[in-house]
Structure formats: C-alpha cells, structure tokens
C-alpha cells in the first residue's frame, strides 16, 4: 500500500515542497551565521521573523504590493537587528537572555498589531510561482528546483553570496577575526563594534525577509505565533552547519525534507499520530545538535561581549 502512495509524482512533489519549505530557514539561518561568526548570538530571530511576517502581510493585505511588503519586512528586521546590536555590542548585555527579551517583544508586538489592525485570520495572494524559463522545462529537475516563487530563489542565491563574503573577501576575514579573537582583531585596527553592528543588522534584515517568506510567499496568512519557533530551529541549524553557509544549506534541506515528509504522512492519512509526526523534526534537531557539537567548535568569542580596556 505504501508503494502505491509513493509514486514518482508524489516523490517529485515532496522534493519540490522540501526545497520550498527550506526558504525561511535559509534566510534566517544565513543571517544568523553572519552574526554568530562575528561572536554575537541573536536569540531574537523568531521575534524578528514574526514582526517581518506581520509587516509584509499587512502591506500586501492593504495594498497588494508584494515588493513593498518585502521592503517593509526588511526595514523592520533591520531596525530590530540594529536594536539587538545596540543591546549586545554597545550595552554588552548577556546575549542569551536579551535575545529572549527581543523574542518576547516580537511575539507580543506582532500579535498586538495583528489584533488591532486586522483582527481575524485572512489570506492574501502572495508571490506567484515564477518558473525559470528553459530550466523549468527540464523534466523532473525543472519541477523540483525551478518552479518556485522569487523569494525561494532568493534564499538559495543567498548561500553562495554568504559563502563568498565569508571566505573570499576582506570583510569576511574581519568578521571571522572578530568572532575568533576580538582582542587581536582590535589590535590590528579592525573595529569589533562596527563589524558586529554590521553582521547583526544584516542578520535582522534577513530574519525580516524570512518572516515575509512565510506570510506572503509560502503560507500567505498571518496569525498569532505564525513562526511557531521556526527561528529557534534556524539558530540550531547554524550550530549544525558549523557556522558555514554550505552546511547550513545542507541542514536546512534535511530539516525541510523531513518536514515535507511529515506533512505528506499526515495528508495521506498514514496512521501515525500527527503529534508524533510534528515532534519528529524537533527530536531530529536535538540529535543533529549532539552530532554537530562533536564535529565543530563554535567561534571562540561567541556570546562573549567585548569590552575594550581604555
């Protein structure tokens, strides 16, 4: 019976939705990779995503302007990233706890705005599928990889860009130096604060886009706690990826394929309790955290505030 359900077209559909579902994880996790590489753990990602998701949804709900939605989500994400940078870099606050504060703020604020400005669950028409000419015509491969919306393509484009910036540019070198040995970087004339401000703000901006990708490209709705902890999983994926964009991509794909499979299992009604199906990716994440903690070492200065001795 299982073989009947698991036909070729189902498999293609599963893989395609796995590719699509990885989108928010990629934006958030790649953004967080920059921050963590420079030594800042931003635990507020989920809250920033929620604010980004709401802002984008609101613009599209009111005006239908998809690009405007993404731009507002970027702006909101940027501002919240800037706030997080101020908290963790200028005020040297404990990063783990202040991030939870930012999360709670985003969780409450997005719900407040949602209740005040929209009030009931609505749908919008989000980003339409934009098949890439020629490539999408390739059988199977085209359906899996090249028949998605613009935000999906953007997420995958981000991976080589992040890889290039981190590994092939002076900026990347500075980011890594600041995350490994801020004292030495400072001695060499690299401004620890400037670099960290930059990476955390970029991370915030990308978290905003991650939220937008949920509310106006994948799910096309907004409701209380839309992300449901997705931002925290993105942070776990950064650990899993060993702070390298390519491995973060691998982690995001594994996670979203498991999720796609889990959803499919529920849709076709395979008798596994849905609760267990939903639980599986989270158990997997813990297993993955155990494995990755053995494999790679975090940036030495991660979560450590840098206080310059005057």
């Amino acid at each position: 019976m299982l073989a009947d359900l698991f036909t070729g077209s189902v498999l293609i559909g599963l893989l395609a939705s796995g590719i699509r579902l990885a989108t928010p994880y990629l934006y958030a996790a790649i953004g967080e990779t920059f921050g963590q590489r420079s030594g800042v753990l931003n635990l507020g990602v989920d809250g920033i995503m929620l604010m980004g998701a709401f802002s984008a949804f609101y613009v599209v709900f009111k005006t239908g302007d998809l690009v405007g939605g993404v731009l507002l989500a970027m702006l909101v994400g940027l501002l919240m990233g800037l706030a997080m940078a101020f908290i963790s870099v200028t005020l040297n606050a404990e990063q783990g706890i202040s991030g939870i504060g930012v999360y709670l703020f985003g969780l409450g604020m997005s719900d407040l705005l949602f209740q005040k400005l929209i009030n009931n669950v609505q749908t919008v028409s989000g980003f339409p599928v934009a098949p890439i000419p020629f490539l999408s015509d390739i059988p199977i491969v085209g359906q899996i990889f090249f028949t998605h919306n613009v935000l999906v393509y953007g997420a995958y484009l981000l991976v080589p860009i992040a890889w290039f910036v981190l590994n092939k540019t002076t900026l990347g070198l500075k980011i890594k130096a600041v995350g490994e040995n801020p004292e030495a970087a400072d001695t060499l004339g690299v401004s620890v604060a400037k670099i960290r401000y930059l990476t955390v703000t970029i991370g915030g901006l990308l978290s905003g886009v991650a939220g937008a990708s949920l509310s106006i490209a994948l799910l096309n709705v907004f409701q209380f706690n839309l992300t449901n902890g997705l931002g925290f999983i993105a942070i776990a994926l950064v650990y899993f990826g060993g702070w390298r964009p390519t491995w973060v991509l691998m982690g995001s794909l594994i996670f979203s394929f498991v999720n796609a499979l889990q959803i499919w299992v529920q849709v076709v009604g395979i008798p596994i309790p849905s609760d267990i199906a939903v639980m599986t990716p989270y158990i997997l994440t813990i297993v993955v955290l155990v494995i990755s903690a053995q494999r790679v070492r975090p940036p030495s200065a991660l979560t450590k505030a840098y206080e310059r001795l005057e």
Partner: protein
Amino acid sequence: MRISWSSIFDALLPLIATLTALAVGAVMLVLLGANPLVAYGALIEGAFGSFNAVADTIVKATPLLLVGIGICIAFRAGVINIGGEGQMILGGLSSIALGLAFPNVPGIIMIPVALLVGFIAGGLWGGIPGYLKARFNVNEILSTIMLNVIAIQLMNLLLRGPLIQPNQKGAAAIPQTARLAVEYDLPRLIPTRLHLGALIAIILAVAVYFFLWRTTIGYRIRAVGLNASASRYAGIKVERYIVLSLMLSGAFSGLAGAIQVYGVNHFMITDGTAASFTGSAGFNGIVAALFGQLHPIGAIPASFLFGALLVGANKLQRVVQVPAALITALNGLVVVFVVSSEIWRRKNARKRAIRELEEKLANVAHNSSPEGGDKDAG
C-alpha cells in the same frame, strides 16, 4: 561598610528598567489611540482593585515564582534554562496521570505524592538538556527550546489518547482529561481562588535561598557559574553540577505545572499550544527571576509584580480595547532593559573597587613610614 548612592542605584536598576518599559508602553498606548493613564489605571485596578483581584494576582504569581526560583538555580550555575514551558507541561501531565489513575486515595496522601511526581518529572525533563550539555556539549538554550515543542506534542498526544476524558469520543472529541477527584484540590487559604500552592512557593523560595547560600552543594553550583574553569581546578566536578542545576531548575517548573493542575485547573485541556496550560509562565518566570536579580527571595516580590501585570492586562484589554498581547511585548522590553542595565552596575562596581583600592592605598601610605610608602605601590 557605608551605603553609597551607587549601590542604592544598583538595587533600583530593575525597577528603573521596568518603569522605562512601562513608559515605552505608554507611548505605544498613545499610538494605539488609548489614554495611557486610563489604561494603566485599569491595569492596577484589575490586579489590586478587590480582594479577589489580589488573590488572582497571587494565584498568577505562584507559577512565576516556582519557575523563577528554578531559573535562579540554573542561571547561578551559568546555564540558561528556556525550557520552563515544557517542564511545566511534564509536571502537569505526570501529576494528573497519577491522580486520574488512583481516584480513591485520601487527598492528604495523594496531593503531596502528586506534587512530588510533578517535581520529579520536571526534573527529569530538565535533566535531558543538562546531560546533553555535560556529556556532549550541546547548547542548552537550543535543546531546552526543542524540548518545549516536544513536550507540547506529548501533551497533545496524551490528551487526545490515553488521558482523554472517557466520554469524549469520535471526531468531535475535545482533547481534555476528566476532572480530578474533588478531594485532590489543593486546600484554599481563604475563600477566594487563592490556594496552598502560593504558600508552598514562598517557603520553597526561602529554602532555595538557604540551599544556594548556606550549603556546600549550593556554594559549588554558584562557583561553577562564576568561573567554571577555576571550579574545575578546585576539584569541583563541573559537569555534575551543570546537570544537577538544570534538573533542579526543571523540577521547580515541573512542580509549578503540578500545582497549576491541582490548585487551579483540576483538569488539563489543550488547544495545541503550551500557553493554554502554562500561561507562558515558563517564559515569564525568567522575567521575574531576572527582575529579582536572580535571588530566590527577590523573586517573591518580582513574581507578585508580574502576576499583577498579567492579571491587570485583561482588565486593560476590556477598558481601553488594547490587546493583552501588549503585556507580552512589555515583558520582552523589561527583560531587555534589565539585562542591558547591567552595564551600569558593572561600571559602578568597577568605580567602587577602584575607590576602595585608592582608599586602602592611601591608608597604607598614611600608616607606614615615609620610606615604606613609596609610589610603586599602585
């Protein structure tokens, strides 16, 4: 020891941080078209306006205090427990399963046993991230967050399955348990909703203070938190104390869950989220603990304050039509402001240390002979 202005300022920092958050809240209220004075007036009246309101505030503060004293233990050991929500759920589930399985035991036996079971279940659930951190160096922030989601799904699974109220059947079944036997209700302290759990929480807060500051184990927990490598050098088995502190932290959250079941709800129901059971006490307990400066005694008034905010939020919502979610957002700001204000405490501490050093040096120079008081002492 004289009391300096800067040390008074230190003690008031959390209060200043909260007032700042409320000021930001006032701006938000204005932007939302509500009069902040009316809104905060409604909040205060909702929390303290009547005998029942005060009782409700204390009832709401109880899980915050229990989670909060657990948070004090974990944070003092240098580990961050974000898993209060999941640990509360485990405490609630295990204690209600026991009470439903044995409905005919005298309450005087069942209640303490059930609370103990909740305590242990929360402790075991908190022990998982502790063990993963100690043995595999897994970041406890992430593992506790994952375990929260797993606990929610476990709750949904059990409330839909084995624990479901027997007469709930078919597709329309509401995922809820039967009510516990009435003899198992935690005794009421006065004729309001105020129950024995509040008293238990306060006694435990005092007990945890003695545990952390007056016992060897407590001393070691704090030593590990202050400087893990120095503690290791001094022969303290750091890993063991990391596991222990996360277990204890989880245990108090588990107890909070059990007390929520036996003292307030008397049954469990799920809408698929943690907050429907915990009221987000697993997160807000962190806020209360931080506000109490990670001191179990300080957590008592802090929990009361945040209990009041939560109870008052409902009244605020009714009176000025601003969603109670505002309070969640403000709690987030309180956390950010309290943690950020630490920078002034550190600056003050540094200034005080320098001043004390200068005074000591001045005394040394004054008391010693001219040839002994040379300038290279600094």
